[in-house]
């Protein structure tokens, strides 16, 4: 029940009317020539710019995406039956913008800045949706890691702050789960997260918001959402709007993580608009500028130089493949734009290996420069080991006779595969990851049966937290692992595993 006094409404209205000053308005105008499928062809508006907002009637807006001598083509932002041929179109003179700032944290908004969570949103500052990417001199090299909390990624495919890492895979392979884990892992840190849901089901967006809320990660997160029922123009704008929101934080010197979920739907929305705007189509019916569509978006992710505050924007674009085909148009485009990719496989996912990362096809082009020293020390040959195991396992399943060294490789590989399994909300701190990898490299899990590895891992981490808490805290804060600390941890783990072996014998 709303609680207010009737008199206050009157005084509020009187005050607003008193403050109003009349200024005659002069603006460009055009006339709607045709209107179909949310595409408007306009006559007139000789001074309009690409990306300019047009006003149709009272509360309807459109975006200029096509210019010619006599007028142009625009897409409607929202469905409107009120726009009919002969309507007057008003040129607003400014390009589409979005409200930005810290009041957006914890909120769900649409790409034109309307709150979708039913709460009031006060807009104090705006930023154009399309901005230029930072120049070469405004950037610095990526050298600080962005922990995802996932052992498989932080150890083998490290992501740096300011990097663009593609998450690619078929449907239902855990792409969003990886991005969500990365966002959840930032809950107690200094990284702000922006999640752009492009053409997603409204129920999925609600579920993601609930998950983030439940684990306490929503308060440093902004969700920019366009659902599958929104028109193509809103879906097209979503990643650019999200990027502008993230840019504001980045230029304030903050570290930001932005997730585009997903860019294949974004390309499809842009293709729909382009075909309706009668642009010539190319491969897979996408327009010629579909590469530029994504490159200009992803180039806005950067690690800024010290003079500009040293903020960063890490982008995790997601792309869905069909039947594992990463050589189709959109995946290859985005693979070539980004600084690496995490490739997820249905077979691995169905075999219960989650995150279902294919280590052979996944790569981080920033490499080990974006890894903590402690992690560098313990994850040296991990990638090679996993790749070797998966190759050997394929042959071993034919029942071939295997020698002792191959048997050992398979046994270690099986344990490692188990160790790399992780639930979406079960993110691991750096120190925990270091302990697990140290235990594996010292072959401490050798006597633990494969099915008990995950339980044993949990117990090991609990034990280490009690026994060496100060060392673990030191690793988490400094990111370093000295030789003495390493010896201490190995010694403690050896005594833990001795206890475990005794338990097994009983």
């Amino acid at each position, binding site marked *: 029940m709303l609680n207010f006094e009737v008199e206050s409404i009157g005084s509020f209205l009187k005050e607003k009317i008193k403050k109003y000053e009349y200024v005659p*308005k*002069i603006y460009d105008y055009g006339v709607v020539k045709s209107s179909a499928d949310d595409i408007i062809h306009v006559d007139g508006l000789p001074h309009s710019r690409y990306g300019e907002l047009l006003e149709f009637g009272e509360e309807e807006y459109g975006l200029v995406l096509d210019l010619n001598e006599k007028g142009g083509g625009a897409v409607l932002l929202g469905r409107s039956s009120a726009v009919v041929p002969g309507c007057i179109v008003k040129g607003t003179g400014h390009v589409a913008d979005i409200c930005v700032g810290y009041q957006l944290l914890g909120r769900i908004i649409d790409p034109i800045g309307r709150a979708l969570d039913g709460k009031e949103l006060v807009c104090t500052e705006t930023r154009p949706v399309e901005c230029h990417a930072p120049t070469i001199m405004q950037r610095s090299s990526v050298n600080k890691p962005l922990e995802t909390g996932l052992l498989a990624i932080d150890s083998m495919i490290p992501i740096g702050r300011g990097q663009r890492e593609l998450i690619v895979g078929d449907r239902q392979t855990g792409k969003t789960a990886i991005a969500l884990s990365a966002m959840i892992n930032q809950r107690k840190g200094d990284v702000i997260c922006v999640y752009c849901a492009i053409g997603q089901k409204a129920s999925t967006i609600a579920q993601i918001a609930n998950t983030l809320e439940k684990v306490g990660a929503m308060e440093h997160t902004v969700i920019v959402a366009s659902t599958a029922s929104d028109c193509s123009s809103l879906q097209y704008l979503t990643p650019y709007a999200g990027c502008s929101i993230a840019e504001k934080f980045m230029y304030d010197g903050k570290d930001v993580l932005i997730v585009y979920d997903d860019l294949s739907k974004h390309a499809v929305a842009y293709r729909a608009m382009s075909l309706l705007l009668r642009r010539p189509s190319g491969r897979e019916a996408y327009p010629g500028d579909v590469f530029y569509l994504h490159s200009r978006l992803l180039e806005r992710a950067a690690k800024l130089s010290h003079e500009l505050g040293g903020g960063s924007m890490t982008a995790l674009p997601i792309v869905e493949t069909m039947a594992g085909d990463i050589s189709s148009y959109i995946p290859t485009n985005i693979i070539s734009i980004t600084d690496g990719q995490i490739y997820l496989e249905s077979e691995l996912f169905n075999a219960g290996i989650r995150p279902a990362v294919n280590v052979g096809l996944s790569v981080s082009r920033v490499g080990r420069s974006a890894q903590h020293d402690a992690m560098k020390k313990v994850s040296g040959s991990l990638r090679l080991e996993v790749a070797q195991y998966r190759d050997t396992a394929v042959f071993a399943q034919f029942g071939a006779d295997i020698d002792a060294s191959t048997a050992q490789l398979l046994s270690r590989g099986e344990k490692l595969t188990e160790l790399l399994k992780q639930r979406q909300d079960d993110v691991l701190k750096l120190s925990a990851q270091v302990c697990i990898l140290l235990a594996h490299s010292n072959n401490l899990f050798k006597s633990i049966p494969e099915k008990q590895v995950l339980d044993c891992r949990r117990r090991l981490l609990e034990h280490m937290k009690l026994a060496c808490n100060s060392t673990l805290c030191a690793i988490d804060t400094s990111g370093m692992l000295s030789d003495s600390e390493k010896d201490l941890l190995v010694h403690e783990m050896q005594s833990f595993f001795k206890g475990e072996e005794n338990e097994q014998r009983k």
Partner: protein
Amino acid sequence: MQQAILKIARPYDEEDIRAITSGFERLLGTNIDFKVIEDNSLIGGFSAFIDGKVYNSDIVSRLNEIRRSFFN
């Protein structure tokens, strides 16, 4: 001679049209030939459409602006 459209709400007379025309001619430095359209949905005042630009001075747009100011 610049062709243009003048939307105007009643009541108005020839004197008003002449005053508006001469005002715009002075402002833009060119002769203007207005096609006058009576539009009572403006409530009062006028809107002139000249060379791709709208010169808006009607009551309905002012009311809309006030309405918008309530929400900002």
